[in-house]
């Protein structure tokens, strides 16, 4: 229930959870990668960084898309540079189907009414050549979700990797 001039945190909480679920469904389906940038606000950032660098305050990140332009460019790199979504013969990587397992998820709010969303995550890749899925990454999401009316978008999505060593290379966002 939204009261005029007041924010309903219960609604926002649900919207933030729904946004995260939407995110996971999109990044787990390579055919839907086009929908990924729209999950972010106009001044958003998407950062993937190791816990080691995060805690040592070292600025080098695995991915540092610190503007909506960079987030949109990621799509261009995936499609045009690496040939994703095109013919198999044109792809310059080894096909893998990603799968996120996320949870639990916790939501708090800051003074501006943004939702601070945290969650544990694990990402597997299923590769045609292997019998078993490969564990790609494990860690924690530290996200900020902002609201424009009823619409929720990521203002900041930080993916903190627990290990200092990436187990593999990857195409689709974590």
């Amino acid at each position, binding site marked *: 229930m939204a009261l005029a001039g007041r924010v309903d945190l219960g609604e926002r909480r649900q919207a933030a959870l729904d946004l995260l679920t939407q995110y996971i469904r999109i990044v787990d389906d390579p055919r839907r990668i086009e929908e990924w940038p729209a999950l972010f606000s106009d001044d958003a950032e998407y950062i*993937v960084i*190791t816990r*080691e*660098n995060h805690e*040592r305050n*070292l*600025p*080098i*990140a*695995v*991915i*540092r898309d*610190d*503007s909506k*332009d*960079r987030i*949109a*460019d990621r799509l*261009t*790199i995936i499609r*045009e*540079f*690496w*040939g994703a979504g095109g013919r198999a013969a044109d792809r*310059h*990587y*080894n096909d893998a189907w990603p799968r996120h397992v996320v949870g639990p998820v916790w939501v708090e709010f800051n003074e501006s009414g943004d939702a601070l969303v945290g969650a544990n995550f694990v990402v597997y890749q299923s590769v045609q*050549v292997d019998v078993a899925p490969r564990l790609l990454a494990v860690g924690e999401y530290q996200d900020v979700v902002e609201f424009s009316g009823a619409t929720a978008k990521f203002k900041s999505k930080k993916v903190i990797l627990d290990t*200092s*060593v*990436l*187990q*593999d*290379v*990857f*195409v689709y966002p974590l």
Partner: protein
Amino acid sequence: MNSRPKSPVTRASPRGVPKVLQRIRWPEEDNKIPREIFTDPDLFRAEMDAVFTGPVWVLVGHESEIPQPGDFKTLSIGAIPVIVIRGANGRVGVLVNACAHRGTRLVEGPSGNVLRGGFRCIYHMWTYDTEGRLIAVSLPDDFPAEFRKEDYGLPRARVETYKGAIFATFNDEVPPLLDYLAELTGGLDRVLGDGALRYLGSIKVIFRTNWKLYVENIYDGYHVTALHTGFQVVRLRSHGGERLVPNYERNGHLWGRSKSTPVNELTPALRDMSLFDTRTKPTTDHNMMVVFPSGVVTDYFDTIQLRYVVPLEPARTQIEFAFFGRTTDTEEALWHRVRQGPEVLGPAGAITLEDAAALERVQLSATARGENVVLKGTAKRFPPYRHVDEAPIRHFYHAYRRLLGFPLNGGTGGARGTR
């Protein structure tokens, strides 16, 4: 004054090839490489000795990664886990990461500082200082009468630096670093400058490929336009380039150098083209170097990068991508490097994915027997080669074969096999 600690390995200078490797047949032509060298587990073990503790210098870090006394990082030289540390006295040392008592690994993590307290082994509380000297043991009563702490310091590799790049060796026969580098110092100077770099952080990744396949990919200029099609999307070209092999008669170094298309002449396929922009140098000249056997030093665009190669298994290799700025950088320049580096030359960046994919596929089919063949540019026997040539790969394998004792003119090296 501590007595010289025992070397942890016997020096590997094989006369002839060990019997177990005599089954590997090298073709007469030096541009043919038998595929089994990427999968054979006995050969892998032999390489960890003959190459990585052979008469080579292994790149293990840069001084700017360990600026304060007590700072350390960890990695392996071949199969030997080591601690690269700035001692309390300010000098860089490389210590074997194994307690001299019963072999426990002294530090687990990738980095830290042990100025206060040194290294303390969790098993029996043996404590070492930042030079690796044993300074305390728990309950020393009832030790053999001749026990002296001075005899149980951590083995140390020899260390030399060039413009802050830290090299280590476990071998007594390798010449001094400057001799070893020879003319490669010209390229190292361009990238490292006066050595006053600022460490920005590292990313490590596992490649599903043999370490030699990872390294030879850097010697290979042929694949760049075929595999890295992203460059074509923006119409980025290298021109005026060449591939050198400094000191090729004695070593297998690589120095590839070239110019790139300036960013304002590229097709703006990305919204943020700073990915390909060179702002901190007057020209787009760049260098891609390998200090044989495995140290990578490069400066594409505004990215200054060192890579450290750790072979894990015949089909798995860990690569550490370390990124740097210069101490003279403005905040803006530094941040530009931070944004550019991993995106263009990092494991999640534009081109590394493609190399990883190709190299994994080479590894997957390496059990198919037969030989890989190096063709482009091989009409020439000696450098310089063109930038698009793959011929420099031959020199990597010349140096490799010398270290292993494999014959340089074909065969198995087993006619008078020893051991």
